[in-house]
């Protein structure tokens, strides 16, 4: 049942002199997937995309597209198209000329009539009919983004590469375009590989997310896998937010382990099974939204002092401190939960409860 992956990286690496942008990396992308490369700037995600597009030559390893080795092929001989971060529209051509550009190549042998109909089709698909004769300089950011999309999809590539396609747009527009991207992916049925540093975007759009860090893949998984079962503190913190605390294993009891954190507080976790038996120092991860106010006599509680409270509309974000813990702990309370506590003013002491099933435990000596 396993088909050939549409894109495959085999031990692909990229170095610039002494700097390693990408350590030897393996990656398979299946036909029709929406895969996102996610990470902060400098993590190697753009390099990876450019290696697939052919704009960078791999220092080592092979790049395969549809099973074919394209490592040595220039961009214009790869069955992929790219939506560039700044769109890279040709300023001296009209919208229609920009879109038709990739169809005019001799080797394509596309009759003029068909070219025109394909341009119109692409324009309609991105909702840009009527702007065909404008120059890119006369378009808004969102319109340029759509032209860049149309220009790339008009060539009917097997794989569409998107390099931070929405980062140049303002927040409102970005959310609308996310929906558009999702729709296009569904309608076109081709593979999308997108680079972004925005985890919300990645979570909303992707079938699978490749989290990258310092030139390596940190974890690959579906959005919910990554969110629920991050493999490392780094992923835990990058996908959603996580309060990361140092802790020591003080006992094991079946599938539960007891952990001591700063100030002597004991926290139980039911997710420590993957931790080596002899591990002593570990890192605890607690999602802010899993820390809920509770009565003081309940098990698995933390006593925290409010340092600052921030109004977030439907939720309240609290910055909290605890004795013996040198960093702030954050929590986000629904407005309804706030009503249950006496005060959220700075200085108030509150008791929080966390379910042992929600306490993540990672091997490791020290907080990242």
């Amino acid at each position, binding site marked *: 049942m396993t088909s050939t992956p549409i894109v495959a990286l085999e031990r692909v690496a990229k170095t610039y002199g002494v700097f390693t942008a990408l350590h030897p990396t393996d990656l398979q992308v299946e036909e029709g997937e929406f895969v996102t490369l996610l990470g902060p700037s400098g993590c190697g995600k753009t390099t990876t995309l450019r290696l697939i*597009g*052919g*704009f960078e030559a791999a220092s080592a390893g092979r790049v395969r597209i549809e099973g074919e080795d394209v490592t040595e092929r*220039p*961009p*214009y*001989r790869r069955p*992929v*198209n*790219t939506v*560039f971060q*700044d769109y*890279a*529209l*040709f*300023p*001296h051509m009209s919208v229609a000329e920009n879109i038709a*550009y*990739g169809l005019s*190549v001799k*080797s*394509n042998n596309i009759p003029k009539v068909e070219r025109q109909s394909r341009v119109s089709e692409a324009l309609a698909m991105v909702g840009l009919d009527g702007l065909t004769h404008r*120059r*890119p*300089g006369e378009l808004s950011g969102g319109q340029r983004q759509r032209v860049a999309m149309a*220009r*790339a999809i008009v*060539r009917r590539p097997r794989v569409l590469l998107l390099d931070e396609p929405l980062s140049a747009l303002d927040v409102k527009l970005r959310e609308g375009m996310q929906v558009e991207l999702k729709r296009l992916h569904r309608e076109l049925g081709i593979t999308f590989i997108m680079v972004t540093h925005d985890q919300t975007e990645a979570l909303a759009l992707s079938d699978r997310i490749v989290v990258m860090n310092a030139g390596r893949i940190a974890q690959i998984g579906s959005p919910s896998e990554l969110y629920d079962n991050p493999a490392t503190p780094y992923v835990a913190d990058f996908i959603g937010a996580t309060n990361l605390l140092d802790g020591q294993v003080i006992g094991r009891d079946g599938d539960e382990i007891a952990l001591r954190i700063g100030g002597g507080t004991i926290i139980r976790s039911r997710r420590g099974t993957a931790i080596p038996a002899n591990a002593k120092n570990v890192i605890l991860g607690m999602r802010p939204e899993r820390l809920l106010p509770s009565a003081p006599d309940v098990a698995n509680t933390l006593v925290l002092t409010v340092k600052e409270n921030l109004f977030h509309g439907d939720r309240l974000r609290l910055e909290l401190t605890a004795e013996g813990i040198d960093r702030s702990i954050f929590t986000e309370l629904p407005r309804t939960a706030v009503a249950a506590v006496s005060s959220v003013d700075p200085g108030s002491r509150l008791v929080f409860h966390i379910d042992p099933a929600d306490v993540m435990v990672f091997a490791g000596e020290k907080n990242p």
Partner: protein
Amino acid sequence: MTLTRRTFPGFAALFSMPFAWVLLLLVVPYGIMISVGFWTRQFPLFYPDFQFGNYAQIFSDPQYTTVILRTLKIAALVTLGALALGFPLAYFLVFTVRSAALRNLLYMSVVVPLWVSYLLRAYTWKIILGTDGALNSLLVSTGIVSAPLDIFLYNQTAMVITLVYIFVPFMVMPLFTVLDNIPRRLIEASEDLGVGPFMTFWKVIVPLSLGGVIAGSTMTFCLAFGDFVAPVLVGGPDGTMVANLLQTQFGAALNWPLGSALATLVLVIVLVLLQISSRLDTAGRVELT
């Protein structure tokens, strides 16, 4: 109002010098030149007048039109030559040379000759192209020819070669700037869309460098059009250009009125060229985003 009055002394101090410079060294001389063009000459003197005899002479006597057409031809050839050399050079500097330090060094080596005396540089070509010159020595010593050729020097070809060499920096400088300003992403986008380097060059790089081509060509053309040294140093008996004609009218022929009329005509030709160039530039201008 108050503000205007308060800043006037500063304004005057700042702009009076440039204004005086423009007035005294540009506007007044041009005014004099244009009016002398209507004077009459009674050899060896000339008298203020207002008549069109000088212009009539310029347009009726074929020697003047011959020289003007020849000058236009030479200037056009120099422009084409400088473009043919300058474009690949600028392209090479911008797109092929990876190291910024090496690129700057090479760019400087193109521009630095401008600091060397014009006469010296033109004179060098005389030494290279002469019958006993470097080029002939090479050809004879390599056995390509048995005796030195005299076809290299003292003709229009030598003038074009010399002028191309002298003015090529004026072509390279604007070309380098426009090429350097073309976002690399556009070239990547073109290649991404399946277009190879050759067609990318014609469909993206050339259209986007037109501003530099126009600027460089205009500068080179105008400089070559007004040149008078190359004809004297490396030109032959058929090398007289408009500037030499002007030199003669103000010099040996002692006919300032005719010379002024001719100079006015040259000014008009140059202004028309600049106008055309500016039109082309506006038409071809694109916003690089």
